[in-house]
């Protein structure tokens, strides 16, 4: 993870929960991070210091076998929520575009910005 190039700021940290595979987001504040299933709750790293904290949290959580495939994603702030800039990561925050009844989009009141194709 440390070797990978860090994406442009601002960023959020996402991962898959080890037990059920669901996508989770680092939330809380930089000194007390936890995992949330709601992309709207993700802590936004606007500066390098916060991004460093997110990366350190990712490394610790991977080590503790709580999550898999944790990485930083660059976001745009739309209507106050962090929306991944890349369509792949946006898909990951919502669920399949062809089945709006499945995934996060079915279970959480997501901001419209996430659902943009």
């Amino acid at each position, binding site marked *: 993870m440390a070797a990978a190039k860090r994406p442009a700021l601002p960023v959020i940290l996402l991962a898959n929960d080890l037990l059920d595979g669901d996508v989770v987001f680092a939330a809380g504040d930089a000194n007390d991070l936890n995992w949330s299933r709601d992309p709207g709750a993700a802590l936004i790293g606007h500066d390098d210091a916060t991004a460093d904290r997110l990366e350190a949290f990712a490394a610790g959580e991977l080590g503790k076998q709580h999550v898999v495939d944790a990485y930083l994603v660059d976001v745009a702030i739309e209507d106050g929520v962090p929306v991944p800039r890349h369509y*792949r990561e946006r898909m990951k925050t919502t669920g399949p575009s*062809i089945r709006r009844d499945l995934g996060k989009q079915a279970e959480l009141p997501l901001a419209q910005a996430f659902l943009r194709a």
Partner: protein
Amino acid sequence: MYRYDEFDERFVRERVAQFRDQVGRRLDGSLTEDEFKPLRLKNGVYLQLHAYMLRIAVPYGTLSSRQMRQLALIGERYDRGYGHFTTRTNLQFNWPKLRDIPDILDLLADVEMHAIQTSGNCIRNVTADHFAGVAQDEIEDPRPTAELIRQWSSLHPEFDYLPRKFKIAVTGAAHDRAVIKAHDIGLRILRHPDTREIGYEVIVGGGLGRTPMIGKVVREFLPKADLLAYLEAIMRVYNLEGRRDNKYKARVKILVHEIGTEEFSRRVEEEFARLDGPSVNADPAEVARIAAYFAPPAYDALPATSGAFEAAKAGNPDFARWVETNVTPHRQPGYAALTISLKPIGAPPGDATSEQMRLVADLADEFSLSEIRVTHAQNLVLPQVKQADLFAVWRRLGEADLATANVGLITDIIACPGLDYCALATARSIPIAQALAQRFADAGRQKEIGVLNIKISGCINACGHHHVGHIGILGLEKRGIESYQITLGGDATENAAIGEILGPGLAAEDVPDAIERIVSVYLAQRQTGESFIDNVRRIGLAPFKAAFQEVSHAVA
């Protein structure tokens, strides 16, 4: 159908117990993800975008009604009430939880199924003609060969860690419905031109993915008894000489291409001559034991055509149209093989709900000697239906949205899961298939266009077989948006060909117009009775390219 013997049963049960222990150790932290990943992949467990995915093997596409019912149950109990049939004739569940997977594997073992070797650098699920045993053009049923290879390749100690994955397909018919020329090894059962003895034509080095290749014939006639020894020789040459330094150049097709077919054949023949054939080849008694499971069932003696069937067709044009597209002649008089389209207009190709799976299982019990097949085109087949029962089956299918009359037509589209599910995808596939199906939904128009295979992949790995689609569509990323490259002239049959790129990639919304223009060229230029692919072969790419380039907004 083949039934597990005590060894098969024990092997699968032991594997479930091992994986249960491995999952337990992963969850308690004794195994890291790096240690666990190869173990879960060997058991068909992937991590996708939104969840884990479990890929279940359907050996040579053959399912019993009992197995189909169990898949329906698993879908309901542990997933979201549906599954996805793949181009490798497997079934994927998109939402299982890791903690539940050992229980799912136990349920599979209860019906003689598993997810072993559906991933990883090993010999994968062997596929075969979906009309095996019932096709009129068949020389011999390919399933005993496929089952023999399944048993030989399961946990084969020498070939469990190959340079890359390895796929084998078998057909016993003149017309190739199993895409054997796009496999690492394709086997075609044939008769020796002089002796009339039955044997195999052996084709090696086909494959799609980032470097598509059509397989090369390395042995024109292999006596049946020598099959396993010859396969072992091929695998040994590949295992020793295939590249391990670069995963993109590690498939056997690259080795065959780099050293040439002649040299590859020479090395295989040399190895074949050196190894102890009798110790490798299957015992004839075992071959006979396997073959007995696939002996033709006790058919009723029926007239070649059914009066009731003919009357139903005459009285119901919708039924008649469905028969025209979805029903295939059977080798047994009075019977038919019917294909159930999993491509209702606007639905994700290859998806079936648990309710639909149960209905298919019920219909198989009532009308098809409990037999079901999965096709590489992501449809299902009831292979043993009496013509006189077709009308009743059609009506029951229609109630579950399973009677779409489009098999082989422009809306019978192959599509991989794409970016809607897949972590490797670079673009979505399913929405493109949906948009095209809607554009060409009109039944009269589909009939006018005739046989036309569209195949869509959401990345270069080509699970959607786009290279061998008459029209192929490849989803890529271009400057941060999804972009679709169109190819033309591919063919998945015995006339296998790789399609050629028509021009720059298109935005998703421009794809239907582009396909429309390609189809228009064909309709304007075809000769009487000329199919789309024959037309492309005759007039060449130029007229299609010209029409394609008129599509506006090309994402150049």
